[in-house]
């Protein structure tokens, strides 16, 4: 199976096309989508977990802010990707940059 198109196109109106970065990689998305869904559509399923402890890191498991597995770093703040609207130019990371966490 290839990473074929997952967005449902027929009968759907979407917002403007946008682009954000995920660990430096370009991710194409649409306004209104969650970061998690956009990652999923781009073929991102998971990334390395946080340190020694903590749940697995997956783009989608519960999709509603419960499992915390989609938590990522944006601007040094840890957010649930499934509850974060994708925006043009967002810098999404799986690890915080050291400068962001020692204000």
């Amino acid at each position, binding site marked *: 199976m290839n990473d074929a198109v*997952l*967005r449902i*196109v027929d009968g759907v109106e979407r917002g403007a096309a946008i682009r954000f970065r995920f660990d430096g990689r370009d991710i194409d998305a649409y306004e209104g*989508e969650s970061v998690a869904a956009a990652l*999923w559509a781009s*073929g991102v399923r998971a990334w390395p977990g946080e340190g020694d402890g903590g749940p697995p890191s997956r783009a*989608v*498991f519960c999709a509603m*802010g419960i499992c915390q*597995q989609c938590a990522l770093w944006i601007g040094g703040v840890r957010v649930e990707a499934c509850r974060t609207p994708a925006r043009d130019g967002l810098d999404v990371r799986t690890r915080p940059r050291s400068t962001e966490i020692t204000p």
Partner: protein
Amino acid sequence: MNARPIIEPREGYDVVVLGAGPAGAAAAIEAASLGLRTAIADEQVVAGGQVYRVAPGIAPVRADQERTDGDRIRAELGAGNIDRCFAHRVWHVERANDRWHIHALGPEGPRTLHAAALIVATGAQERHLPFAGWERPGVMGLAAATVMLKAQRMLPGRNVVVAGAGPLLLVVAKAIVDGGGRVAAIVDAHPRSAWFASAADLLSRPDLAARGMGWYRALHSAGVPMHHGCLLRAVDGDAPALRASVFPVDREGRARADGKAVTIACDAVCCGYGLMPATDVTRLLGASHAFDLTLGGWHVVVDDDQRCNIPRLYAAGDGAGVVGAAAAPWQGRVAAMAAARDLDRIDTATHASRAAPARRERIRAARFGGVMTRIANVGDGAVASLASGVTMCQCERLTRATLDAAIADGCATVNDLKGATRCGMGPCGGRLCEDAAARLIALATGHTRTEIGQATGRPPLRPVDLDALAGDFDYDALPMPATAPL
């Protein structure tokens, strides 16, 4: 979003409603119509809960019934005299000085709402049954799949295994097929006949029953393979090349001795086993709860007017017992009426005449939803058959073997197990694992779920950014209590 800024009345609100799904929205609208100063809070940016969930900016070209119903609720909420605190994550609720203090983190920072009465309408959450590989990328819940399909308008995969129990199986499978994807298989824990066990209750909503039958037939004619009376045992492989292994089970969910595993190639797995009431807030507040599988398991106990056993606390919607979206608004209205009565804003006679028909509608509307809940239940045998290496608690990476050992060592309650193994102490707060862990205890000890209990509720209700909570502060102005004794 709000057209006007939210300024809490100086005396606080009469009613704050937590959750803007069908129950909460109806409660807020009713409360406002009765003249109560009302606010509603929800984590999402718009109302709708899970049933009518939408992502702003993504819309169907032609609205379906659900979209239409949801839009109507959103419009009614917007038109009412109700302060809408959307995108507010409520992290703690306290009771002090005869009122409720609802601590939330919103887009502008921390805010606390004060209320004389609190209506909790936070809905339900998915019940999970662990299996080997449920922590693998490419596996998601059934409820998650509905979020992806309905709100994000996205397929979970192009060749999806849909597994578990309950009405969401058909909902998800149909939505995948309608969206142009392929369903590799439907894996239903129950035999076909289970759907017809409560024919009379199903026919209380002939429209919904017909819709469900229609979906079933359409999926069948589309050639979707259906495995009835089977459980998902394992998922192997690396997304998108996954292999789902399913196994026939008996009525208790135990693997059949004569059964043969079937392996299904797929690129995503969506699985879930019904809905359970979300009891976070009511547990945190120490309200009385009861365990009843016909209502989805643990739920807050309410009287005929949706009152909890704590004064001025009410619960409406699936949190008081999973009976579905049709009953939810009636519960919300009954709760709001009770609050209005308890706050002496309507007299007994007015209350009685208004509440009686609402209570009747509530009962009628719950019949169909009640069936859906009962249908989703899978026996504890499903947990009994789990291999010892299966991950039970994903957050803390605990296997069945670890939990079994702690239970053998004397852990008899969920709280015991939590203390001994850290099961349920991770970021998800036990929402993924507590039910299955409790079932393990039940299997080993023979104790009832009531004896086994629920985990004690603790704040924050969801993880919250420390800096956002702390805000700006001046060290020298921190109110330090007395220094520790020397």
